[in-house]
C-alpha cells in the first residue's frame, strides 16, 4: 500500500501522510502545539478528509500550521492518492468568491514582492509591508515534486484570506507553457480570483494567446467576468526580448511587461556587471515595447538582499530608462524602491506649476501657456498630469495604511 505525502515537518507547516484502505478514517495528530490547538487541527483535517470521503490512515505531524495550511496539505495528500472531492469546499467554495476588490489597471506597481508559494507562514504578514503587488510564486521557488501541493496551498490562501494582503494587489506566477505544470496551475488558481497572473518565459505573441484562451475558458466556467484577470508577462530570454513588442500587445489583459534579468543573463551568457550594462539594451527594448502597447514596464529583481546601495542604483537606472517599478525578493527592499519610483516632492511641485500656468493661460484666454520661458505643450502638460495622478494615488494609498513604507 503506498503512502501519499504532502507538506513538510517544520515551522508553521505540517507533514501529512495518507494511506488509503479500510472502512473508516483513522486520524493521528502529533503537534508541537497539541495542548492548545490539537482539537482544531484534528477538526480541520477531519472536515477535509470527509469532503473527499477518504478512508484509511491519515497522520499529521504539525508544527503550528494554521488551519488553512493543514487543510491544504490534507487535500494535497488525498488528491495525490487519486481521491476526488465529493463535497464542495464550504465557506470559501467556488460558489462564494473571496471578498476581494476587482483587479484594476490603474494602480501603482512600483514593487512586486515575490513570495515562495509553498511556504504557509510567509504570506500571513505579507500585506503588512505595503508592497504594491504581492506575487505568490509557483514557478522557480517551488521544487518540481512540490508543484501540486503548492498550487493547492496558494488557491486556499486566495480563497480564504483576502485580508492577509492589506491593500496590495495579488498576483500568482504560474509555471511556464513549456513546463508540464502550466495548465494545472491555471485550473487551480483562476477560480480563486487573483488580480493578476504573472506569465514567465514569454517568447512570442502566441504564448500569450494560448494563456489568454485558457484563462478565458476558466473564467467563464467559474462564472467570472471575461477578462477580469490581468496578465503580467515576463520577458526573460533573448527571443522574448526580440519579440517584446508582439508580446506586449498580444492581449488586452496585459497590464505591464516585466523583465526577468537573471534568466536573460543566463540566456545571453553574461554575468551581472557593476552598472548592469549587459541588460541595458534589453531594458530599453522592453520599455519601448510596453509603452508602444500602452502598458507599463517593470524591471527585474535585484537579488542581493544585503546590498541596499546596489538596489537603489539599479532602481534608479531602471527608472531613468522608463520603468515604473521593480521586482523584489525581500520586504526590506520596498522602502527604497518606492522612494525611487514615486515622484519626488520637486517633481510634484514642478508638475503643479505647469498645470497652474496652463490653467492661468486658459483663464486669461491666452492660446499658449509658458513657464520659465518654455512653452507648455500637450506632452508637457500630460506628463505633469501623470506625475500628479501618480503622486495622488500614492499619497492616498500610503495615508490609508499605517505600516506602509515602514521598512
Amino acid at each position, binding site marked *: 500500500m503506498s503512502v501519499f505525502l504532502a507538506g513538510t515537518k517544520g515551522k508553521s507547516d505540517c507533514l501529512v501522510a495518507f494511506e488509503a484502505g479500510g472502512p473508516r478514517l483513522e486520524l493521528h495528530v502529533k503537534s508541537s*502545539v497539541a*495542548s492548545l*490547538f490539537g482539537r*482544531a487541527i484534528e477538526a480541520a483535517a477531519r472536515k477535509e478528509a470527509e469532503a473527499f470521503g477518504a478512508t484509511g490512515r491519515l497522520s499529521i505531524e504539525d508544527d*503550528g500550521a494554521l488551519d488553512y495550511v493543514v487543510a491544504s496539505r490534507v487535500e494535497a495528500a488525498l488528491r495525490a492518492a487519486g481521491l476526488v472531492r465529493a463535497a464542495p469546499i464550504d465557506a470559501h467554495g467556488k460558489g462564494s468568491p473571496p471578498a476581494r476588490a476587482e483587479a484594476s489597471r490603474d494602480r501603482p506597481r512600483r514593487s512586486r514582492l515575490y513570495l515562495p508559494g509553498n511556504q504557509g507562514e510567509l504570506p*500571513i504578514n505579507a500585506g*503588512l509591508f505595503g508592497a504594491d503587488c504581492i506575487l505568490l510564486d509557483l514557478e522557480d521557488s517551488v521544487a518540481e515534486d512540490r508543484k501540486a501541493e503548492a498550487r493547492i496551498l496558494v488557491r486556499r490562501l486566495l480563497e480564504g484570506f483576502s485580508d492577509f494582503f492589506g491593500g496590495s494587489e495579488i498576483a500568482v506566477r504560474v509555471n511556464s507553457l513549456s513546463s508540464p505544470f502550466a495548465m494545472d496551475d491555471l485550473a487551480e488558481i483562476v477560480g480563486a480570483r487573483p488580480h493578476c497572473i504573472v506569465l514567465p518565459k514569454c517568447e512570442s505573441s502566441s504564448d500569450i494567446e494560448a494563456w489568454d484562451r485558457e484563462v478565458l475558458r476558466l473564467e467563464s466556467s467559474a462564472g467570472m467576468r471575461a477578462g477580469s484577470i490581468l496578465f503580467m508577462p515576463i520577458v526573460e530570454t533573448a527571443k522574448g526580448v526580440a519579440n517584446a513588442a508582439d508580446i506586449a500587445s498580444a492581449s488586452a489583459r496585459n497590464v505591464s511587461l516585466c523583465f526577468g534579468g537573471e534568466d536573460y543573463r543566463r540566456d545571453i551568457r553574461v554575468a551581472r556587471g557593476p552598472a548592469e550594462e549587459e541588460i541595458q539594451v534589453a531594458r530599453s527594448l522592453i520599455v519601448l515595447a510596453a509603452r508602444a502597447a500602452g502598458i507599463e514596464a517593470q524591471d527585474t529583481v535585484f537579488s542581493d*538582499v544585503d546590498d541596499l546601495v546596489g538596489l537603489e542604483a539599479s532602481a534608479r537606472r531602471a527608472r531613468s530608462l522608463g520603468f515604473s517599478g521593480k521586482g523584489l525578493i525581500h520586504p526590506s527592499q520596498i522602502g527604497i524602491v518606492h522612494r525611487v519610483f514615486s515622484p519626488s516632492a520637486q517633481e510634484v511641485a514642478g508638475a503643479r506649476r505647469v498645470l497652474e500656468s496652463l490653467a492661468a493661460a486658459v483663464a486669461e484666454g491666452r492660446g499658449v501657456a509658458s513657464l520659465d520661458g518654455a512653452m507648455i505643450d500637450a506632452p508637457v502638460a500630460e506628463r505633469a498630469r501623470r506625475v500628479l495622478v501618480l503622486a495622488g494615488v500614492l499619497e492616498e494609498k500610503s495615508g490609508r495604511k499605517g505600516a506602509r513604507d515602514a521598512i
Partner: protein
Amino acid sequence: MPSNVNSLGRPVPDRIGERAMRPFAGAFALQAPPASPGLARARGPGPRGLGPRGLGPRMRGQASRGAPAKLVSSWDELLDRLDLYDGMTVSFHHHLRDGDAIINETISRIIARGYGDLVIAPTALFPVHDRLVPFVESGAISRIEGSMNGAVGAACSRGAMRGTSILRSHGGRCRAVESGELPIDLAVIAAPCADPFGNANGIHGKSACGPLAYPVPDSLCAEQVVIVTDGLVPYPCSPWSIRGGNVDWVLEVPSIGDPARIASGTTRLTRSPTQLLIAEMAARFAEGMGIIRDGFSFQAGAGGISLAAVASLAERMRSGGVKASFAHGGGTGILVGLLEEGLLGSILDLQSFDLDAVRSCRDNPRHIESTPFTSYGPQGAGCAASMLDLSILGATEIDLDFNVNVNTHSDGWLLHGIGGHQDAAAAASCCIVTSPSFRKRIPIIRERVTTVSCPGEVVDALVTERGIAINPRRGDLVELAKRAGLPVVEIGQLMEKARAITGIPDEPEFRDRIVAVVEWRDGSVLDVVRELDSKQEWPGERTE
C-alpha cells in the same frame, strides 16, 4: 496550602516551606513614603526592612600572618575542604552561557559524594545544563531558586522537583541574596581570569566572557565562596570584579567551558521581515514619544527584535544628529559599534553577548562593567535601570491588563527565567514590550496570561507587527502616539486580529500542585506555576 489572593487577583501561597510569603500588592507597594523626591525607604523586618536576616556581607578574618593558602590543586581537594551537607544551597552565574562546564561538574561531583536534596541557585541555565535533569529526577536536586530554563524548567513543570522553586529577576535575586532571604551555602564562581588570592574578572583569559557581574552578590554573602578558573595569573589580578577578600578557595582547572559557546562572533541582525517591522515600529514609537533626544538612554536585549530596534533607533539618531548618554543591559556588537561611532556616551554592561562586546568591555573605558545591584537592585536608592528613558523588552504572553509572562508558554511549560525584565520594566521611565502578535499560530495576547512575570502596571505599550497597544494608564502616551500618527490599536482589538488568523487556543490542563512561585523584585509573590497534567508532552526547546 493556605493562600491569599494578591492585588492581581492571583491566588498565591502564604508560605513556602518555612518561609512566609507576602502577596504582591503593587509594583511599589512595599516602599514606605518617600525619603526624598523619587526615592523610597523600604519597610518591614530587618535592618533595612529587606528580609528576615538582613545580614549584609559575610564577615571573615585571618587566623595568622601572611598570604592565605586558598589555592587547591584538585576538585577532590576542594570538596574535601568545603563544608558540604544535604539540603545545601549552591549558587552559580551564567556568564559562560551555553559554554559553561562548571555547573554540571560541580553538581555531579557533590552528588557523587553522596549529598542530596540540593537547592541550586543559578542566575540562568542554558541547554548545556539539561544534563542536570537526571539529578532532578533522582531527587538529588530538590528545587531551584533563581532561574530555570529549557529542560530543567520542563522537569519542574512536570512536577519532578520535590520542593517548590522560586523564580526571581536579576534585581530580585540580588536583593534576596543580600537580605538573607536567599541564604547561599556555597557560591561556585567560574572565572576566566583569577589570581591565587581570589581576585577575578571575566575580560581576560581564553574563556573571556566580558563582565563577571552576576556572582558579585553571591561573593559578598555566601557562606563559602570558590573561584574556579582556567586563567590563573599572579597576584594581583586586575580588574577585580570579584574581590579576593570575599573568596575562600581558588581551584585551577584546564577549562571552565567551551569558548566558542561562551561568546561567538558579531551578533547578526535579523532578516525576518516581521521582526524588522516590529523593530521599526518600536523606534517610531520612541520617536513619537519624544524619547529620542540628546542625552537619552535605553536598554534593549539581545533578541532579534531588540537588536533590530537598536539599529532602527541608531538610524534616527544619525539622521537627527542625536547622541544617547548610555545604553544599559547586555553588551552586543551593535551597541559597541554605536559607542565607537560616538552615538553612545557609554555602555553599562552586565553581560556580554558576543566577542565584540567582550573586547570592548576589556579595552574601552566607556564600556563599563556593572553589577546586579548597580544595574537592577530594588533595595538601592535607585539603580541604573531607573536612569533609563526607555526599556525594550520581550514576552511569551501579554494580557488585556498588560501583565507580561516571560516564564511559561501558553501551553503551561516553564521554560525561561525572568532575567532583568521586571527590573528594567519597573525602573525605566518608559517600558515597551515588542513581540509578534502570534508565534507559530500561538497568539501572544491573552485575556489572562498563563503566568504573571511582570505586572501590567509598569508596562506602557505593546508593539507588534499589527499595531501598537498603549496601556490606558498612560493616557499621556496615547495622546502623543496619536499626534505622531502611530498605528495605535486597543489591546483587545489586537488580540482579536491575531485570533482571526490563529483561532482561539484551548487551555492546558494543570494539576493543583504549585511547582514554582514567581516573586516580584521586592520579594512579594506575583503568581505561581502549577504542575502540568501528565498528558502533556514537552515539545522541546523553544526560543522567543
